[in-house]
């Protein structure tokens, strides 16, 4: 390929072609040997000592200077023949065939092959090549190959030749010499008038055919050659630096004669073109002085009748000369000649002139467009390469010249640019400042080459030009511009590929005669695909798309070995680059890879783009890329590719959670010590499991403990996966990644709906006891490699780490330390100062979901119950029982079963208790209800065992409690006493629970209210002794009794029998039984023996049934109030203890308790209930001598009037301690009575326990009538006096007599 070297105009192209069956390696070896001769001293060239026209371009003997060779690997296309005269340096002037040979017989073959090759490469009508030769290198032959004389073009190199290189050099010189001779011949043909006419015939003229030449001129007496002094001016020996002024004079001296003479021949056209061709040949021949002279002349001539193309071409040639001279001089042009200007400004001026001329010229015909565009582009590139060479060589110097003269065939990169850091800004700027050429200048120059005219070029030239532009941009560090051009290069190359393939397809169709629909797969060649893909990746990278984001990996790679450096999905990602361009270039990349076709690359690119550009891709594009990738992967698989793509769709797994085991299967760990009987069992129900500590670290641990799972039982994990794309994402397999105990699970394949979160259940079985760690999920896309996504638990550290990362990203957002291409996201990550240490978190610090696998557990189920429909209907206070039958459906026996109960009344009561707002009294009531009256209860039985498959029935007692709406029976069971042969005594055991919820309805049918305690009426018992035997109401000693009464309302629809039993100690049993019809209220009355509680008893505080600590009394009661409260409490308790209230369904079997606990005991009731401390009896006695007692009838006394009688008051101390009593008396009406002594505070004195004393008071009724006498005792103690005990007496004084 053309390398667009600056000095290409001065380089003799020597095409090296392989001949015969030579391996590429061998060819390259010999070719590189030949290529070392890129410059040959003119003095080294053997001059043919002919004096004919062939001598004109031969170097003068002893001349200094060099001729330059370049060795392209390909000939120009045939279509370029039109450039033969305007640009002779474009064509290989010599062809050297390189062949190997082992025996002489093959030589003829080689020569014929060589000739065939040359004939194939160059059209027979063309002028070039001017020389051809075939180098045959002897190989592997013992007997030397005899150089046969019949092939002059053949040169044989014996294998053992020591100075082969030298020989090659000599041969090259000979070839050049031959070329120069041919130059002479050519010029001679052009010099003829006909030749000149041909030369001026068209813009891109061709050489007249030999047959067209006038024979007269051509025969023996040819046109006399140009005087040799014109070709070899004397000034050639003058100093090079002073060439310019001297030359002018000289040329003006020599040339006009030529012109005159030529014009004399009668040529109508100017000789400008002829001179230009001549100058070109001189330039090629290394004779720069001559070339300069002729160029100058040519430019003069070409200007006046404007022939701008040739003019520009001549200018290009002129511009080359100083470089050649400088190079051969070996040092830079001294700037002394032009102080103000750069040394290369002359050259640059000439080239820009040429560029402008090329650009402006109106091309006469369409077919010339191609060449014109090509020459124009070459000129621009020449100009650019001039500046580029100077720039890259840090200024005008030998390095720059070397660069400009580099022969190729590969482009040459000066050492300033070929090291690693060459593209850093600092390096590039350094070059700019040292050379004085800003990069922008080069770039803007180069931009001139780019334009629509590129379309005129043939594909090969177009690629060549674009390549040159791209590589220059690349060296300048203009990577975006490079990417732009590279896209064109790719378009170009692929256009050729696609078109070529279509042509192939057509020809094949024809050749196979295939007219049906049978597809024929040609053997595709994948040569070069690699490079195209490389270009693609480069372009994409510059635009900020990393096509390598998804790697192609081996099929069998271990999913866990991949690095987990993936970003967390929720961490903010800064946008980078130009989304629209990225999308466009990505689409193009996929299309390119498809066109090649490279199916793996298609997959890789499509998926990489999906991953990196997901937020910018339109739905249609996403879908297109996805289907393309899937299709390509399938095709690749079908063709036997053993590679796979990495998993690509970001992070699909959002969360993993262990699906909670069904309650009946959930094992609960208990310490073995729980089996030991505990002292205080009852309190749990009161406290309701509330914890006295606000912060309890132990409980925290318990809550965060590992979930327990059972060996050999199926576990289910709920995995949430996401699909952020607009298409349904297919996952070939999704499985759990676990460590710890072996875990048996199967993978599932699924399709995640577009743009959604999806829930998947993965199940498996643990195969051993111990710890099971769920690291994450292994995900595999169709045709992809499995990949593990680790999901650490959201522990505090993890949360903190993510938060840290997120905030770091947010903090970095909007800060641009590196802008533009320096800020590639994938580079930025490495630049963060502490990212290295942070990201290297090892998996050991991560916490994972962990399960504890416990041994196999038995399983129980409820086979049947006596409850219908799970609903229990009870009357208030009803006692009943239900039976539950459990069945062991596992293969393990159950040797432990416990029942626990819960009902809807417990929680509110516990809450009320926990709040502590209730008074002590209410607290007691609540606690009492919780402990002594549970809805459910059972007789604990430790000896229950259930063998596998057997059943057992348990009885549960129920108690109807108003307000209870539902209840639950929990059964905990376990297999504790396993054969502990394996690892001794376990410290824990596991239970499972089974619950039986019940709907409970409690009907409230009897309402008790209006409890009252009345003093027993002091009516005479002797009134009708008959009734006493019938009724319980009648008791002896009525002073020691009181009456308990209670109203019972039946609010239900059925009659009930209500009974109250008296179960006081030392008192005969009594009962009252009433049938309460529906809707009616009955009062039950039963006498109660009064009682008195000791002071110690009533001074005890109201107990709390729980062991609650720190129960602070909220209500501030005074001491007296508190004493009163306690007294009320204790008496009430005693009252309830002595009564048993029950109801029974009339005519039914249901029975229950009637609770009195809603009833209040008032102070008056208390007074009545409590046995008084003093017992008082009043009797009337006459004076001690009188034996006749006072008439006493029906509880009334009938004392005489106006007669002194005594009232005998008998005071008995009923308490168990000694007390001091006084007496008060009251008589109504008072004014009709006279009495002896005082009626108030009659001292009685100290009475020991149970001691009694009589006090007599003498009174006299003054009139007839009814009198009422009341005596009451008073206890005197330190606090004062309190009334206790009274008696009443009614006296009828002579009312009827």
């Amino acid at each position: 390929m053309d390398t667009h070297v600056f000095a290409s105009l001065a380089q003799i192209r020597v095409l090296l072609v392989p001949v015969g069956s030579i391996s590429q390696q061998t060819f390259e070896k010999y070719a590189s040997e030949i290529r070392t001769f890129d410059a040959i001293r003119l003095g080294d060239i053997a001059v043919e000592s002919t004096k004919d026209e062939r001598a004109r371009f031969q170097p003068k003997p002893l001349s200094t200077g060099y001729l330059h060779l370049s060795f392209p690997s390909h000939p120009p296309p045939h279509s370029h023949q039109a450039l033969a005269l305007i640009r002779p340096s474009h064509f290989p002037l010599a062809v050297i065939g390189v062949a190997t040979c082992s025996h002489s017989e093959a030589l003829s073959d080689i020569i014929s092959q060589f000739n065939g090759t040359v004939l194939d490469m160059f059209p027979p009508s063309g002028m070039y090549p001017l020389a051809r030769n075939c180098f045959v290198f002897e190989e592997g032959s013992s007997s030397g190959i005899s150089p046969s004389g019949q092939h002059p073009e053949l040169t044989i190199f014996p294998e053992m030749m020591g100075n082969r290189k030298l020989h090659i050099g000599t041969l090259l010189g000979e070839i050049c010499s031959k070329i120069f001779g041919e130059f002479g011949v050519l010029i001679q043909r052009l010099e003829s008038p006909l030749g000149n006419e041909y030369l001026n015939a068209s813009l891109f003229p061709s050489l007249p055919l030999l047959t067209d030449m006038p024979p007269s001129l051509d025969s023996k007496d040819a046109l006399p050659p140009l005087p040799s002094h014109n070709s070899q001016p004397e000034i050639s020996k003058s100093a090079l630096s002073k060439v310019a002024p001297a030359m002018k004079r000289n040329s003006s001296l020599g040339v006009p004669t030529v012109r005159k003479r030529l014009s004399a021949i009668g040529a109508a056209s100017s000789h400008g073109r002829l001179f230009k061709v001549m100058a070109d040949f001189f330039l090629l021949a290394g004779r720069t002085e001559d070339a300069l002279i002729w160029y100058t002349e040519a430019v003069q001539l070409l200007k006046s009748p404007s022939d701008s193309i040739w003019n520009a071409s001549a200018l290009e040639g002129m511009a080359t000369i100083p470089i050649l001279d400088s190079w051969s001089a070996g040092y830079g042009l001294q700037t002394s000649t032009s102080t103000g200007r750069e040394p290369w400004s002359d050259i640059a001026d000439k080239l820009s002139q040429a560029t402008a001329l090329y650009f402006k010229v109106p091309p006469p015909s369409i077919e010339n467009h191609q060449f014109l565009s090509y020459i124009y582009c070459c000129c621009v590139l020449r100009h650019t390469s001039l500046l580029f060479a100077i720039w890259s060589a840090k200024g005008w110097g030998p390095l720059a010249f070397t660069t400009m003269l580099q022969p190729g065939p590969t482009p040459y990169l000066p050492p300033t640019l070929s090291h690693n850091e060459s593209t850093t800004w600092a390096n590039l700027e350094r070059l700019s400042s040292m050379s004085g050429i800003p990069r922008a200048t080069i770039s803007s120059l180069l931009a001139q080459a780019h334009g629509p005219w590129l379309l005129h070029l043939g594909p090969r030239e177009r690629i060549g030009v674009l390549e040159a532009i791209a590589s220059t941009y690349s060296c300048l560090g203009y990577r975006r511009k490079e990417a732009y051009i590279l896209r064109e290069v790719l378009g170009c190359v692929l256009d050729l590929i696609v078109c070529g393939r279509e042509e192939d397809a057509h020809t094949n169709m024809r050749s196979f005669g295939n007219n049906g629909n049978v597809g024929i797969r040609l053997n595709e060649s994948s040569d070069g695909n690699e490079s195209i893909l490389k270009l693609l990746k480069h372009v994409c990278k510059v635009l900020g798309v990393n096509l390598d984001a998804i790697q192609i990996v081996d099929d069998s790679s271990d999913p866990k070995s991949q690095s987990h450096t993936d970003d967390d999905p929720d961490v903010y990602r800064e946008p980078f680059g130009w989304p629209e361009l990225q999308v466009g270039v990505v689409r193009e990349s996929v299309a390119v890879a498809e066109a090649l076709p490279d199916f793996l690359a298609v997959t890789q690119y499509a998926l990489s783009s999906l991953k990196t550009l997901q937020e910018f891709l339109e739905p249609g594009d996403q879908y297109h890329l996805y289907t393309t990738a899937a299709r390509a992967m399938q095709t690749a698989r079908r063709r036997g590719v053993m590679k796979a793509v990495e998993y690509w769709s970001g992070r699909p797994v959002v969360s993993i959670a262990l699906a909670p085991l069904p309650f009946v299967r959930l094992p609960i760990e208990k310490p073995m010590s729980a089996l030991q009987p505990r002292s205080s069992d009852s309190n749990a129900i009161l406290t309701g499991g509330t914890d006295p500590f606000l912060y309890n670290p132990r409980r925290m641990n318990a809550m965060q403990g590992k979930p327990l799972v059972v060996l050999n039982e199926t576990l289910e994990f709920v995995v949430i996966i996401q699909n952020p794309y607009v298409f349904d994402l297919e996952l070939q397999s999704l499985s759990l990644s676990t460590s710890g105990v072996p875990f048996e699970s199967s993978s599932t394949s699924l399709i995640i709906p577009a743009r959604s979160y999806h829930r998947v259940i993965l199940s498996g079985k643990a195969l051993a006891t111990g710890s099971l760690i769920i690291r994450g999920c292994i995900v595999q896309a169709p045709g992809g490699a499995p990949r593990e996504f680790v999901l650490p638990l959201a522990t505090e550290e993890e949360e903190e780490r993510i938060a840290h990362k997120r905030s770091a990203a947010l903090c970095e957002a909007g800060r641009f330390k590196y802008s533009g291409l320096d800020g590639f996201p994938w580079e930025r990550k490495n630049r963060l100062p502490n990212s290295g240490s942070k990201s290297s978190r090892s998996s050991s610090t991560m916490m994972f979901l962990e399960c504890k696998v416990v041994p196999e557990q038995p399983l129980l189920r409820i086979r049947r119950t006596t409850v219908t429909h799970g609903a229990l209907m009870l009357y208030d206070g009803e006692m009943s029982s239900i039976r539950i039958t459990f069945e062991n459906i596992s293969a393990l026996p159950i040797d432990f079963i416990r029942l626990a109960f819960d009902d809807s009344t417990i929680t509110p009561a516990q809450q009320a208790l926990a709040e502590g707002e209730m008074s002590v009294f209410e607290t007691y009531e609540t606690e009492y209800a919780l402990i002594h009256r549970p809805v459910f209860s059972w007789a604990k039985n430790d000896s229950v065992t259930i063998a596998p498959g057997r059943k057992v029935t348990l009885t549960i007692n129920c108690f109807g409690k108003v307000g209870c709406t539902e209840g639950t029976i929990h059964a905990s069971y376990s297999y504790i006493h396993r054969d502990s042969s394996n690892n001794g005594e376990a410290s824990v055991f596991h239970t499972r629970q089974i619950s039986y919820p019940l709907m409970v309805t409690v009907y409230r049918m009897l309402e008790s209210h209006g409890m009252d305690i009345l003093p027993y009426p002091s009516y005479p018992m002797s009134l009708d002794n008959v009734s006493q035997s019938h009724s319980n109401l009648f008791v002896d000693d009525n002073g020691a009794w009181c009456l308990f009464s209670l109203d019972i309302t039946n609010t239900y629809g059925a009659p009930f029998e209500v009974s109250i039993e008296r179960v006081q100690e030392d008192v005969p049993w009594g009962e009252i039984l009433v049938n309460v019809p529906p809707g009616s209220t009955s009062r039950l009355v039963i006498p109660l023996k009064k009682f008195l509680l000791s002071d110690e008893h009533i001074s005890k505080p109201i107990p709390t049934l729980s062991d609650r600590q720190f129960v602070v009394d909220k209500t501030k009661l005074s001491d007296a109030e508190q004493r009163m409260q306690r007294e009320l409490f204790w008496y009430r308790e005693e009252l309830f203890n002595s009564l048993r209230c029950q109801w029974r369904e009339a005519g039914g079997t249901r029975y229950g308790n009637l609770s009195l606990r809603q009833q209040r005991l008032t102070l008056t009731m208390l007074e009545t209930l409590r046995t008084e401390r003093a017992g008082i009896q009043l009797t009337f006695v006459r004076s001690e001598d009188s034996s006749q007692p006072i008439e006493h009838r029906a509880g009334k006394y009938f004392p005489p009037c106006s007669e002194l009688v005594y009232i005998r008051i008998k005071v008995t101390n009923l308490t168990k301690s000694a007390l001091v009593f006084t007496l008060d008396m009251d008589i109504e009406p008072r004014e009709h009575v006279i009495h002896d002594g005082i009626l108030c505070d009659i001292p009685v004195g100290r009475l020991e326990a149970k001691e009694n004393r009589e006090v007599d008071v003498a009174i006299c009724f003054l009139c007839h009538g009814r009198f009422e006498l009341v005596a009451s005792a008073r206890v005197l103690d330190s606090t004062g006096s309190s009334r206790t005990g009274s008696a009443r007496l009614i006296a009828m004084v002579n009312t009827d007599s």
Partner: protein
Amino acid sequence: MSHHLFILSPSDTPIYNLTYSSTKPTPTTISPLSSNLPTWSTSAFAGTLTALSGASSTTQHTTGGGVRIGGGQDRHVIQMIANASLDAVEDVMRKESTMYLKSVDKFNEWTVSAFITPGNTKFVLLHEAKNDEAIKSFFLEVWELYVKTMLNPFYSNQQMIRSSTFDTRVRTSAKKYL
């Protein structure tokens, strides 16, 4: 004569773009070289090439391959040119402290002028004719509008500017100067 304005964040992401066609005539500096372009439409990639090389005559709307690059003033090509000109802009920007970089780059028929805000946001304008002073005034107005928009705490210099006010005002300003 059309103008293309791009406002680019420091990470080269466009946050605003405007295509404005002024009524002024387009200077015709078409090279004879680019006339009579061959119309070879052979594959999808030829379309890409045609568009990228700046040929305006052909209309290559390809159907297959998903490459949607047409001829003429293709939006994608305009963006490519704007993006490529960032090379030159950055180069100049690092050496000079001026905000307004006039005619900093030329590619195909487009001249690129740029304006760099102190926050390293770049305004890139592709235009066809030389109009330095007016463009400078235009840039200054756009800058002011930009700064006013960025005062809004809900905007960052990496998000698309979606404010319709901004858009209207920029258009007004474009009408005034371009």
